[in-house]
């Protein structure tokens, strides 16, 4: 009997198409998707959301008890203000913000929830002897910068304008490339091998340094080659600070693969010149018209990293910040070094809007569209609080989008309901190995509008919602089959032109 139970359980658990995950409402139930849009959360739910979003933990029993008292005394506003302040100075908030920044910078996260206390500059080898080896990965200037921004409520600009670093001893293979001790040797009066964490500061106008960009962790993550010419680093700067992810342009060589390879690996010049060897241009890739769409931005910024290879150079490299604004205007500002370029970036409207978008994604959600009006409002507030990190977070968690049930237009509500149905398809498709089927709940499906429309056409056809005689999906043997209500929802949604995509595309392409 027990063998039968185990077999049954295993069968269900490993099945990619488990029984319908759809909530089956009973009379009087209110489905989560049907919660009144824009209505405030209860005080207890708001407290839970506040605690989870700021510090990644639920409120304690004492927190809820104190809330109950505040509700009784009608002092909830004061309570929440005080609770927000308390959460923002917690170690857990510092850890959570550091984790968010690690993800933003595309660096490997620390494997364990860090319980490390702030770094003590005076600590010697005995401090490190108490650490778990996994903790070594967090002891580097980049992570220290992340932690300082959260713990000391520094301006968010510190990510680009920070001038204080900490070099850590090299203790093992895990921190060798990111400890900053050898990275800073050439520019600071510290020996290559140090026994204890050592502070290093630079002048405010030092053009060689630029906060997180001139740390060994950033350099290690975005390694450079003679061919790459710091474009990888430049691309990271554009993605993180200007929200320009520069999707690679596929160069059409009419099927001539050698043509593409020529661009990437140009033929070496023939001694004495001549046709056969070509011009010997070392940058045919960068000068191709299609490639220029990204390279006109990447190359000038890449030059500002040029003098620094594996470690920070004592010499500046001139470069430029070049890009085209949404209104067509061109930004083209020279800088003596990456430090000047970083400062220039912080003065751009696109930078402020991009950083505000990150906060929106973290505290409100990347699936909640951010319209232009709200974006402008947030950006204005970002400036008003002098871009101070925790002050801006306090503002965000007091916005209606955070404290209410999700605000949705009827169009968005319908799209959300459609997604709830379509996610049943993901359950089976996730296990499909022969054909790559994108997620039907991540819009635009397939990554762009054209792909989205193509897939919607197929979904409509396979569900026989376009008048086709036979429904092909889901397969007859599938445990999930859409019911009449779901099919009716999808039919109406298609007839209305599949609304709900526009806001997703706007958000995805910002």
């Amino acid at each position, binding site marked *: 009997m027990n063998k039968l139970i185990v077999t049954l359980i295993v069968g269900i658990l490993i*099945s990619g198409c488990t029984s319908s995950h759809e909530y089956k409402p009973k009379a009087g139930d209110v489905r989560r998707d049907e919660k009144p849009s824009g209505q405030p959360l209860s005080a207890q739910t708001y407290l839970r959301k506040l605690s989870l979003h700021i*510090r990644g*933990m639920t409120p304690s029993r004492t927190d809820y008890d104190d809330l109950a008292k505040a509700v009784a005394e009608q002092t909830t506003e004061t309570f929440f203000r005080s609770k927000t302040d308390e959460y923002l100075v917690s170690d857990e908030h510092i850890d959570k913000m550091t984790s968010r920044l690690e993800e933003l910078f595309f660096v490997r996260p620390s494997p364990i929830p860090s319980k490390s206390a702030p770094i003590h500059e005076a600590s010697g080898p005995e401090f490190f002897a108490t650490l778990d080896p996994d903790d070594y990965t967090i002891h580097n200037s980049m992570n220290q910068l992340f932690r300082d921004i959260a713990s000391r409520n520094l301006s968010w600009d510190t990510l680009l304008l920070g001038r204080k670093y900490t070099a850590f001893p090299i203790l093992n293979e895990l921190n060798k490339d990111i400890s900053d001790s050898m990275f800073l040797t050439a520019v600071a009066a510290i020996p290559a091998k140090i026994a204890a964490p050592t502070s290093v500061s630079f002048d405010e106008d030092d053009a060689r340094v630029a906060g997180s960009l001139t740390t060994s962790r950033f350099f290690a993550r975005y390694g450079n080659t003679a061919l790459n010419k710091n474009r990888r680093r430049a691309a990271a700067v554009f993605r993180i600070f200007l929200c320009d992810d520069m999707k690679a342009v596929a160069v059409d060589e009419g099927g001539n693969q050698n043509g593409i390879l020529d661009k990437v690996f140009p033929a070496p010049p023939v001694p004495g010149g001549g046709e056969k060897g070509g011009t010997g241009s070392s940058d045919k890739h960068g000068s191709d018209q299609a490639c220029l769409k990204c390279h006109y931005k990447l190359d000038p910024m890449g030059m500002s990293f040029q003098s620094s290879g594996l470690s920070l150079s004592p010499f500046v490299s001139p470069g430029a910040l070049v890009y085209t604004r949404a209104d067509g205007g061109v930004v083209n500002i020279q800088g003596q070094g990456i430090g000047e370029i970083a400062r220039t970036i912080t003065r751009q409207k696109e930078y402020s809007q991009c950083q505000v978008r990150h906060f929106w994604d973290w505290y409100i959600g990347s699936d909640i569209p951010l319209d232009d009006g709200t974006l402008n409002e947030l950006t204005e507030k970002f400036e008003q609080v002098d871009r101070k990190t925790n002050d801006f977070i306090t503002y965000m968690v007091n916005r209606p989008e955070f404290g209410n049930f999700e605000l949705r237009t009827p169009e968005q509500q319908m799209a959300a309901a459609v997604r709830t149905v379509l996610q049943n398809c993901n359950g089976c498709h996730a296990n499909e190995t022969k054909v790559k089927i994108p997620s039907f709940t991540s819009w635009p499906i397939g990554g762009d509008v054209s792909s989205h429309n193509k897939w919607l056409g197929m979904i409509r056809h396979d569900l026989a919602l376009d008048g086709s005689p036979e429904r092909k999906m889901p397969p007859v043997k599938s445990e999930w089959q859409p019911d009449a209500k779901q099919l009716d929802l999808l039919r109406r949604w298609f007839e209305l032109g599949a609304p709900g995509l526009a806001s997703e595309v706007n958000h995805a392409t910002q």
Partner: protein
Amino acid sequence: MRRNSLILFALIVFAGNVNAAFTENSRRYLHPRDIFNVMAQKFPVLTDRVKLKSYGVDLGCWAITAENENVIGVVNPAIGKAAAELPPPGFVRWIGSCAHKVIAAQVNELFAQPRNEKLFARYFPADILKKYRDPVDKTQPYDKLLLTQWGKLDPKEQHSLLKFSVTEMIGPEPVIHDLGYAKNMNEVTEAISKTLEDGLLLKDALHNILLSTMMREEFQTY
């Protein structure tokens, strides 16, 4: 074996609730680090690595490893996204397995510290602690509590323990209502109570209750 069957039954019943996406949408699942933080918050044994080793709790139940990073939704630093858009079947296996081990370790800690009033107060409401405190042996106040049968608690006490556990693990009544996966607290406690047989010892009943709450959407989402 019977207890294990019940636990596995609970896994099936509540594993069916794991749906929707890993990525942020209307059902946002906890970030992997938040899962670990919340677990450590609810089960303090997770902060003692020496004890975890002795109780046989895998590294993968309290740290990101190469084996678990894809199923728990860790953002891949190469592409800036999690490997899976929605919790794969592996996520259910991971959280079920880890919840089982972590709770077992924590219950063992209760046995190891029968005088620790603060520790017991995390898992039992005051009315039960008051009633089952050993009046004679003050040095072992809760020695017998864990070995009491579930059926020996009167319905009011059973409900008190269930409600206390759900409140501690997820939140009070308004939170249950607002999260919307169940209408109210009673719906949740009734569902969990169906997995508890009268003959279960309280240590096992507690295990099942905590496991059941951890497998619910309310615990796993924001």
